[in-house]
């Protein structure tokens, strides 16, 4: 039994702001997940024509002026929407907060590709004359852009930066927020991840060249993790930013607490640019369990990272079997099957989709699973239909990225 931590050393989630291809707040998103509603659609991309993608339909003018939209990036706009929604959801009044004590930590897979492609397209119309490169280009493509736009929009003067962490970005943004709170650097953290990737052709084209871009006659069935007939990744945009704070502060102001971040881990495969490594993934999950001071059997839900690729899904299943093999009460699901791969936002968004399980005791399923791949056998994989369970005390959220970057976050149902 671990010693009880003081409230200043316990970090809780008290606000959620999100936009997903199938919902623009947690209630809508959860409703879609329980109804099996996908957010994948046909989408036109420069040079490639029609592809399949997850597209968000939030109203950017809810929090931004038209000029801000013209100046900024899509990732910035997504981040602003999510950060503002998180503050509102946490029932905080920005005008009454010490804005120098708020930190903004946004996970990204990449940033700048969208505007780089756009600039090259623009100057092509002028025979590649570089005097036509926009003066807005630099502030749009600096790596801190999505987090920086949040501070400009909200008047936050505390630290801001992004965490470049491939598809593990959302978990790592959240972990960074937690760590800065523990260090006492800030009093509130806006932490999570965003993605604007669908607005550049590069990711689609590169996944296609890898033989890893999903295709299906029905867009809503294109993302099919663990299915024998899966054929790759559906690239999506999205965002999820949490308001996180120290438990003592949350209790003092009577905040609604979604859950406590009790465990986390980040490690590296040191193995390959793109191929996963089950052994290191298993080690990462074990590290997070150790940090939380719990054992594998304590976990109630695992949100898998699985993206719908042959190697990736199978490796994660192997890693899960190694860590959780004998525990029959651990339910496993997948959220990408609904929304595709929201890249830098994926970890944060997928975790959010599961948080209501603490209250409603329902595990949303992985959808589009018609023929389970024999390489992906898992106990209690929740397939196609939501599962009502007796209790949900711990959620484990896997998120892995290229260059062998693994991340795991464990959230505990809040109970003092």
């Amino acid at each position, binding site marked *: 039994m671990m010693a009880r931590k003081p409230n200043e050393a316990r970090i809780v989630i008290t606000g959620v702001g999100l936009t997903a291809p199938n919902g623009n707040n947690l209630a809508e998103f959860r409703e879609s997940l329980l109804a099996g509603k996908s957010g994948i659609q046909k989408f036109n991309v420069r040079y490639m024509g029609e592809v399949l993608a997850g597209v968000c339909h939030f109203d950017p003018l809810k929090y931004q002026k*038209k*000029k801000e939209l*013209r100046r900024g990036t899509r990732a910035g706009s997504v981040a602003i929407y999510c950060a503002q929604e998180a503050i509102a959801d946490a029932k905080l009044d920005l005008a009454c907060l010490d804005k120098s004590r708020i930190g903004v930590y946004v996970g990204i897979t990449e940033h700048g590709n969208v505007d780089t492609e756009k600039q090259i397209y623009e100057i092509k119309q*002028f025979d590649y004359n570089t005097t*036509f490169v926009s*003066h*807005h280009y630099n502030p749009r493509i600096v790596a801190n852009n999505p987090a920086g736009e949040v501070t400009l929009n909200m008047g936050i003067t505390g630290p801001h930066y992004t965490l470049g962490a491939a598809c593990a970005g959302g978990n790592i943004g959240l972990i960074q927020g937690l760590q800065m709170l523990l260090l006492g650097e800030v009093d509130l953290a806006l932490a999570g991840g965003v993605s604007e990737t669908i607005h550049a052709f590069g990711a689609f084209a590169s996944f296609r060249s890898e033989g890893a871009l999903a295709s299906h006659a029905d867009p809503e069935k294109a993302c099919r993790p663990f299915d024998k007939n899966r054929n790759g990744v559906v690239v999506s945009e999205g965002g999820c930013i949490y308001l996180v704070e120290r438990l003592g502060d949350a209790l003092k102001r009577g905040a609604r607490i979604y859950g406590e971040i009790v465990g986390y881990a980040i490690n590296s495969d040191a193995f390959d640019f793109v191929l996963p490594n089950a052994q290191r993934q298993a080690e990462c999950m074990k590290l997070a369990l150790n940090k939380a001071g719990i054992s594998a059997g304590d976990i109630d839900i695992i949100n898998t990272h699985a993206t719908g690729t042959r190697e990736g899904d199978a490796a994660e299943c192997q890693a899960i079997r190694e860590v959780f093999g004998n525990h029959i009460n651990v339910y496993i699901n997948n959220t990408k099957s609904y929304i595709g791969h929201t890249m830098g936002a994926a970890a944060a968004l997928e975790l959010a989709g599961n948080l209501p399980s603490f209250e409603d005791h329902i595990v949303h399923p992985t959808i589009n699973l018609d023929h389970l791949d024999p390489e992906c056998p898992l106990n209690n994989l929740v397939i196609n239909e939501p599962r009502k369970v007796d209790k949900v005390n711990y959620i484990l959220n896997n998120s892995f990225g290229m260059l062998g970057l693994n991340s795991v976050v464990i959230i505990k149902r809040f109970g003092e």
Partner: protein
Amino acid sequence: MTKEEIKSVLMEIVAQIIPDEDLTNLKGDIPIREQVELDSMDFLDIIMELRKRYGIEVPEDDYMQLATIDSSVAYLEPRMRDL
């Protein structure tokens, strides 16, 4: 292009650059930046639009001549007369 046409083009460009501002009462003889929120990056957008649409290069030394709508029209008229 006539002076009126040039003014109309300028107003369209400014409206596009600062879409939240009401330009109905914009006075031609008072610096634009004293009447509406238009910062230096917005101003560079005007320069870029003139370059993109009409191939007009405005040297940095001449930027002051684009301070008001009227002075802009006067400055641009000889350069846009034959367009």
